[in-house]
């Protein structure tokens, strides 16, 4: 099988799909050109992520990693969410095929983008670790988005 049972479960029954109205942080990464776009919505109370939703345009692992990543940060503190790595998401899904690892990177980055937005909205400086390493340019798909 291409995907683990865990991946298929999160793909077929994705957790936390949707939008949050008046979210405290919203981040979108990816590029339609590359076939993967993730959008994360965070509700933050104090320093706790009380709710999280996502919308994803992408392949099976893009949807599954979005779902898993939202589960992994829900109810966690911002500090905890900031330490979430793509490897941890992939591991929680019992692994991803090599050529699909970029999807987990995308999930990590979507969360970071949403947190960065949260800081920006609050007018606070964005922590260095939330800055994305790469920005998708027209015409090519960088490793993190496709």
């Amino acid at each position, binding site marked *: 099988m291409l995907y683990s049972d865990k991946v298929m479960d999160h793909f077929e029954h994705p957790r936390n799909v949707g939008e949050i109205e008046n979210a405290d942080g919203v981040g*979108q990464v990816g590029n*339609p050109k590359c*076939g993967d776009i993730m959008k994360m919505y965070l509700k933050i109370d104090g320093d706790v992520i009380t709710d999280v939703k996502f*919308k994803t345009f992408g392949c099976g692992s893009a949807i599954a990693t979005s779902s898993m990543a939202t589960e992994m940060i829900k109810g966690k503190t911002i500090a905890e969410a900031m330490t979430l790595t793509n490897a941890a998401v992939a591991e929680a899904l019992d692994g991803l095929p090599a*050529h699909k690892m970029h999807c987990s990177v995308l999930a990590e980055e979507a969360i970071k983008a949403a947190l960065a937005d949260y800081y920006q909205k609050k007018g606070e400086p964005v922590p260095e670790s939330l800055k994305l390493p790469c920005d998708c340019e027209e015409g090519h*798909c960088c490793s993190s988005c496709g």
Partner: protein
Amino acid sequence: MSEKFVYADHAATTAVTDTALAAMLPHFTRDYGNPSSLYRFAQEGKTHLEEARAQVAACLNAKPEEVYFTSGGTEADNWALRGVAELMALKGKKTGHIITTAIEHHAILHTAQWLEKQGYEVTYLPVDGDGLVDPANLEQAIRPDTILISVMAANNEIGTIQPIAEIGAIARAHKVLFHTDAVQAVGHIPVDVEAWNVDLLSLSGHKFGGPKGIGALYMKKPLRLPALIQGGGQEKGRRSGTENVPGAVGMAAALKEAVDHLAQESARLAALRDKLIAGLSALPYTRLTGHPVKRLPGTASFVFEGVEGEALLLHLDAKGICASSGSACSSASLDPSHVLLSIGLPHAIAHGSLRLSLGAENTEEDVDYILKEVPAVVAYLREMSPVWDKEAQKPTWEL
């Protein structure tokens, strides 16, 4: 998994037909001799091999001695291109120009790119929005040093059928060798190497009810390409290796069966296909890909804006529907299909493709089931897509 099972991916591969399997079986355990052996026991296998060759030839309007068995369509494609290049090199033309199209299968494209590295120049002809090559365009591309034209008979992703006879006439008029990758055409539409004026034609057994691992290259007499695979001298020295007798016999039986029922079966499939096309292209922000009429009888292909192909396929799989997006073999690739880009689709949309290819066992009930499930999955995925505007029911992008 769903109770229902609808296999709608016949362009990827087909089941071996009962007739083909029955023809093969004796050659595994009873009539298994090596056709190159002298004794009668093995010569019987040889006889069946030659009957298979004659059957395949008859289905193409070719002569038996013009059919060379290969391990599949890919090998036939590789052999055709590299073989012509090597033949010309033996005649003193160490480099040259090849014309093909931007929408060929990778068996052609990668071989052409390999030849480019060896110093050949390759023109990849564009196609129009329906996936058609313009013969006038092709004629203009011919140069004094053009050694080969290779244009596929029918496209594997979008089903468009090229004007092969017209292109063949042009190639003949300019005395340029002409190859067609007919892997998707043979057994599905009438194929006539004489009427088409082709010098070389590739086919693959498992696309029409034969087994995997067998195919053929047709070579018009007296053309004789140097071998790609050398050794014991089988296939008149052009393709060595102990002959795959069960494979050849199974392929021939399946092809004969397909061709015998072609008119009837292709009409039946075309009706089902057109029902699929009518039903699915009615969905909003959905387009048929490939030519509306000049297309393979069983193939219906689409793009759905705001939906990603793999996710679509996986959901259909959960409903028991086997289908594909882009071509099966490049499923591990991240890039959208070169074919869909060539017909002018923007990248974002090219990611949302679906190919449904019908075959013998498909019924109207299957089509109705697909017509029920595909729209539901498309709606569901759009619902969770950040590039779909739920209120307006249209994509968020302007393309």
